[in-house]
């Protein structure tokens, strides 16, 4: 037996209570791992270099429109190889819970910009030639039981048709598949020409442009050049990588990082109170045992360090378990939200931070009991038992 073994044994004096305490700490650190992984996505800086696809979005708000006519100016920028555009269509398919993104696009341009979306040429022709045409990913079609030739009704919430009609009916003319390892979304694509002509307002406007650069090393330079073009216009732009843009759009829905920090703060405060109370209770029960240790020759500091060590050990075990479970769950979470929030991962920094926090938590919880153990008078404690 070692001192560590002695601490470990002390933890299991009340097996059920210790397991429940470890479980509560584990849940706290599971949340820590998952939420930090997500929050980190919002905190990483813009790294534009090396990206071959950029997104040109409104500078101030994702709901601001950009004139379609910008496309020709963007095309003329040095280093731009191809440009296309998309809009947020919104709307509801049968039930608001049936959520999937719907983008009005120019078919050939869009599929050219996204080579990871693969569709037979005749279906792309049909999409290009059918005013009311639309295409969906194979996964979306499987999910909703669609087949080519079906009519897909979408009820508009943002874009009514001229005359006020909110029901848009699209002809499904193609199904595309997504290349393996590509982080493309399951999107419902409709024909921009039809959408732009039929919508009640906003004609000639798009939501964003997608740009492919000739050389990924030019990405930062091209971004600056595009934004400079429209800097003093009514609709200034901000160009970034697609991944960064998605993060920003998501973050605009709320201060995600702040919310997550607040949640973590509340969780940890609660855990500190609960665990601190449990450890204090455990200490009270074991006062005679600490007196016995001192009788045997353990110094005041030695007994205090055992108490502190137990608290740290308890938090480290709970923290390591929580972070371990978070590591197992993170790939699943990342896969689930890959389309809207790519790049979620539980990095070593988060694990190391988590373990550091667990240690600090243990020290914070254990310091008062350790001081009590340090001050414990052997004779008084033994008399209390006798």
């Amino acid at each position, binding site marked *: 037996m070692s001192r560590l073994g002695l601490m470990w044994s002390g933890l*299991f004096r009340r097996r059920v209570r210790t397991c429940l305490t470890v479980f509560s700490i584990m849940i706290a650190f599971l949340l820590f791992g998952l939420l930090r992984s997500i929050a980190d996505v919002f905190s990483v800086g813009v790294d534009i270099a090396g990206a071959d696809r950029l997104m040109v979005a409104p500078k101030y708000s994702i709901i601001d429109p950009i004139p379609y006519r910008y496309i020709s100016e963007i095309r003329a920028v040095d280093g731009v190889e191809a440009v296309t555009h998309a809009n947020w269509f919104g709307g509801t398919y049968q039930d608001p819970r049936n959520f999937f993104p719907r983008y009005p696009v120019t078919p050939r341009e869009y599929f050219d910009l996204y080579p990871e979306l693969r569709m037979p040429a005749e279906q792309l022709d049909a999409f290009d030639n059918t005013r009311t045409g639309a295409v969906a990913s194979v996964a979306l079609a499987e999910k909703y039981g669609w087949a080519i030739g079906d009519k897909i009704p979408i009820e508009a919430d943002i874009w009514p048709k001229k005359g006020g009609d909110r029901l848009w009916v699209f002809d499904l003319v193609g199904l595309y598949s997504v290349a393996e390892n590509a982080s493309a979304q399951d999107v419902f694509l409709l024909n921009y020409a039809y959408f732009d002509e039929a919508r009640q307002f906003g004609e000639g406007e798009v939501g964003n442009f997608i740009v492919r650069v000739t050389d990924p090393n030019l990405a930062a330079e091209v971004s600056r050049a595009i934004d400079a073009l429209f800097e003093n216009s009514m609709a200034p732009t901000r160009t970034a990588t697609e991944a960064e843009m998605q993060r920003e759009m998501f973050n605009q829905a709320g201060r995600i990082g702040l919310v997550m920090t607040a949640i973590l703060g509340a969780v940890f405060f609660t855990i500190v109170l609960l665990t601190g109370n449990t450890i204090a209770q455990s200490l009270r029960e074991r006062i005679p045992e600490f007196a016995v240790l001192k*009788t045997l020759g353990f110094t005041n500091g030695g007994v205090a360090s055992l108490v502190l060590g137990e608290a740290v050990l308890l938090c480290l075990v709970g923290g390591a378990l929580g972070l371990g479970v978070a590591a197992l769950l993170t790939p699943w979470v990342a896969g689930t939200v890959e389309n809207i929030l790519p790049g979620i991962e539980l990095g070593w920094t988060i694990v190391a931070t988590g373990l550091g926090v667990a240690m600090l938590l243990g020290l914070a919880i254990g310091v008062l009991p350790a001081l009590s153990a340090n001050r414990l008078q*052997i004779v008084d404690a*033994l008399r209390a038992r006798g």
Partner: protein
Amino acid sequence: MSALVKLNGVSKSFIRGKEELRVLTDIDLSIEEGDFFALMGPSGSGKTTLLNLIGGLDTTTAGYVQVGDTRLDELSSKALAKWRSEHVGFVFQFYNLLPVLTAQRNVELPLLLTKLSRSQRKSNAATALKVVGLEDRADHRPGELSGGQQQRVAIARAFVADPEILVCDEPTGDLDRDTADEILGLLELLNRDHGKTIIMVTHDPKAADHASHVLHLDKGRLVDQVSA
């Protein structure tokens, strides 16, 4: 024989509220190496307090306790803890074993304070358990042992680090007669065959019969001393 333990004018008082409670008054005592001392007296006479002072668990209000060449009142708290770990083994009425540890590990506890290797600690603890006849109970926790067995484990723990002195506070107070006799026999064996100096507090005259010297305390003063 030289005096191993020497008490010189020892007094002990406790402060209870505004009142000073005098528990021991001007005790002079010499205990020779290899003695088996029994301390007797009515409840509240100061037996356990005297034992605590000899064992370095408490400090005197006046006078001093000297063990060998060491005056306990001159040691710091840390030095006193170290001294206890090297020179004194303790046996209590209620055994005071750690309930989460097996008998083997309870006996090993004092050895954590030594420089012995893990395997040496384990081996020494096993030997101590063998001396008290509990080698087959090494993996049992205190809750799985009888009172007598727990007290044997406590005795093994008391002598495993090879201290000169064993202080025993009512070691048979919680045991039946037969078991008490076994425990007292064990203490006698440690005194006779292993040369341990034993100082035992007891209410039980039959337990005191096992001692070579019997001291009586009354109201904090030594009344008389009987040698066997």
